[in-house]
């Protein structure tokens, strides 16, 4: 039974130059991470600190959230709490509607993707312009982002040129990234200057000082935070870090793991609103407390959304983010989906892995991603009746050496038939791209017995 993700990958990222380019572009980020990490002697120690700091923070999350709320409030921010996606959307909409805000600029926030904020606001007459270049590209293309850090990595320059020719008044046939970026710069400037409100995410929230940390390379979040008089920051509960000393560690890991830079271009520490402006902070649960209560999976809340696991994943690179059908793709997406997702297909995402372990090896916070996938497979991934029956049958055969050998002999008899393609062939999935291994002849155990009898050394 071929999985939905496999079929989606075939359709959405067909084999050919597009697939080759996607795989190469994403792997290049992995190589940049390797180079940046190798150049930083503290790297492994930073990872270990980050792991321990996140474990500590999550184990005291109530205390840190309360402290953050108190300090942020004292600095003049207003803190809201949202149980789930609908609550987030309602809170944000109310803030905008009460102030008559109709034009909003938004910088990257995977949380708002997860909660479907854009369509909610747009259906209520509010124009939301995503200002991160990659996010704007996918927004104009009416599709979701396909990567946490590089939302449009699945798009070629020709795709983007054609899109901009249609939407931004760029000459047809323009494909130069610099000129396309220039066009986006001009186009988005107008939106920044005319916006009534800015919505951002937050990479971290520092409990000790009530500070939000917003990180970009483009400066789009800073433009949003410095022009309109209303700033709404949405973040998941797990973004808390205890203090500035911890923040230093995470900042040193984030950009190196994401893009291979020692630091992003803009790292803004925001405490309270600008003078004559408002800052509203919305803390969002949406399934995170469920993960927190799960001994096996709470570690996944340590994720700092760097994307390193996506970049190294052989499956993600050849499937593309859209095939996952979940706001967050890749290994971390597959780990979060059973808790944060809604559909049965999303709950099956932990199966979309060879369990090679590369994700675990690159995670800056040392989340044991591939082991989390294995754990989910035993608990929450739905298994059909046929699958469960097959497993019971196979286990019964394998638990008996006599039955096992009988099955082996039977398979040998039908082997030539299995090798050919015919409707209903149980080996069909294997045979789609591979030959069946050659007729193996006698099993090892049979040959071992013979060898022993002959006294061969």
């Amino acid at each position: 039974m071929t999985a939905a993700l496999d079929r989606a990958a075939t359709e959405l990222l067909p084999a050919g130059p597009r697939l080759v380019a996607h795989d190469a572009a994403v792997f290049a980020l992995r190589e940049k991470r390797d180079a940046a990490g190798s150049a930083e002697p503290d790297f492994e120690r930073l990872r270990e600190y980050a792991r321990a700091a996140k474990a500590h923070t999550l184990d005291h999350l109530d205390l840190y959230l309360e402290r953050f709320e108190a300090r942020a409030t004292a600095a003049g921010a207003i803190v809201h709490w949202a149980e789930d996606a609908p609550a987030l959307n309602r809170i944000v909409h109310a803030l905008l509607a009460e102030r008559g805000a109709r034009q909003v600029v938004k910088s990257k926030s995977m949380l708002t993707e997860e909660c479907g904020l854009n369509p909610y606001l747009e259906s209520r007459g509010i124009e939301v312009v995503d200002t991160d270049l990659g996010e704007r590209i996918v927004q104009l293309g009416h599709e979701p982002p396909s990567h946490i850090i590089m939302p449009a990595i699945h798009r070629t320059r020709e795709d983007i040129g054609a899109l901009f020719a249609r939407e931004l008044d760029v000459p047809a046939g323009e494909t130069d990234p610099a000129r396309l970026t220039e066009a986006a710069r001009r186009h988005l400037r107008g939106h920044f200057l005319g916006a009534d409100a800015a919505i951002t995410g937050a990479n971290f929230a520092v409990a000790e000082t009530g500070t939000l940390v917003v990180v970009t390379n483009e400066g789009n979040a800073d433009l949003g935070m410095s022009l309109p008089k209303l700033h709404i920051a949405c973040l998941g509960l797990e973004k808390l870090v205890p203090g500035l000393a911890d923040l230093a560690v995470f900042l040193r890991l984030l950009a190196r793991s994401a893009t291979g830079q020692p630091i992003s271009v803009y790292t803004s520490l925001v405490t309270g609103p600008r003078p004559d402006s408002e800052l509203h902070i919305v803390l969002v649960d949406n399934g995170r407390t469920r993960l927190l209560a799960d001994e096996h999976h709470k570690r996944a809340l340590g994720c700092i959304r760097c994307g390193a696991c996506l970049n190294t994943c052989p499956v993600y690179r050849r499937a593309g983010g859209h095939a996952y059908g979940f706001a967050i793709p890749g290994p971390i997406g597959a780990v979060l989906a059973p808790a944060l997702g809604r559909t049965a297909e999303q709950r099956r995402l932990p199966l979309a892995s060879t369990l090679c372990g590369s994700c675990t090896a690159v995670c800056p916070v040392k989340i044991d991603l591939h082991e989390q996938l294995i754990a989910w497979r035993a608990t929450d991934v739905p298994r059909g009746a046929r699958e469960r029956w097959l497993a019971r049958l196979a286990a019964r055969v394998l638990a008996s050496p006599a039955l096992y050998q009988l099955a082996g002999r039977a398979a040998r008899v039908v082997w030539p038939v299995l090798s050919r393609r015919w409707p209903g062939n149980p080996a069909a999935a294997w045979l789609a791209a591979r030959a069946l291994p050659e007729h193996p002849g006698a099993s090892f155990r049979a040959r071992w017995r013979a060898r022993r009898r002959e006294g061969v050394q």
Partner: protein
Amino acid sequence: MPEREAGGVKVALFIPCYVDQLAPEVGLATATVLERLGCTVSFDPRQTCCGQPFISTGARAEAVRLARAHAANFAHAEAVVCPSASCVATVRRRYAELLGAEPAAELAARTFELAEFIVSRLGTCDVGAHFPHRVALLESCHGLRELGLGQPTEQLGGDPSLLGVTERLLRGVAGLELRPIARRDECCGFGGAFSVGFPELSARIGRDRLRALAESGAEYATGTDASCLVHLDALRRREGFGPRAIHLAEILARRAPG
């Protein structure tokens, strides 16, 4: 190079189910090499499967049943040696959840992958093998990342001159020319049940490995994981290009003629 007297270590062969049924020559070569190194090799025919496919498909009850049977079969073995890193990783990394920490740790301490057993336990990188061919190494994900048989490329700041056990053994083979490949430890795309549930993606990943192996100019592709090699060779025969797969044990078992 004459056979080493390794003090007569008693080795209980752990032959993965798919090696037993689909690649028996790997098991025979494993026995040949270990005997040449002075081990007394036995094979307990009660063994069948370590349970890995059931773990990776979430069939926990079945996995526990098979893990218990496996542990019982090898309860009295001094050293359990297996020519497949993924099966050894199952015992060393997954059994604690199934059997309990202590029983699993006790068994794990006696369970070895073939290359690590030869290099670390028997203390040699030269088994007197002769294989005058160009060979590329297909690193085992489980071997590198779960068993520590070598340093995976994700690990930064280690000593680059420290070779993994598989590579060290291959470099000890007379006449063998080891060819490097691009992205040396990227997955082969097999992933057990993954190859059946996600056939397109499994083939995409595997074809890229095959291309990297082909571009290395190697005549043979080898490794410590028979499952990866079976998958790669199956792809090779369908695609019509790429080096033939041969298990590390088979290379080590080859001697100079005469």
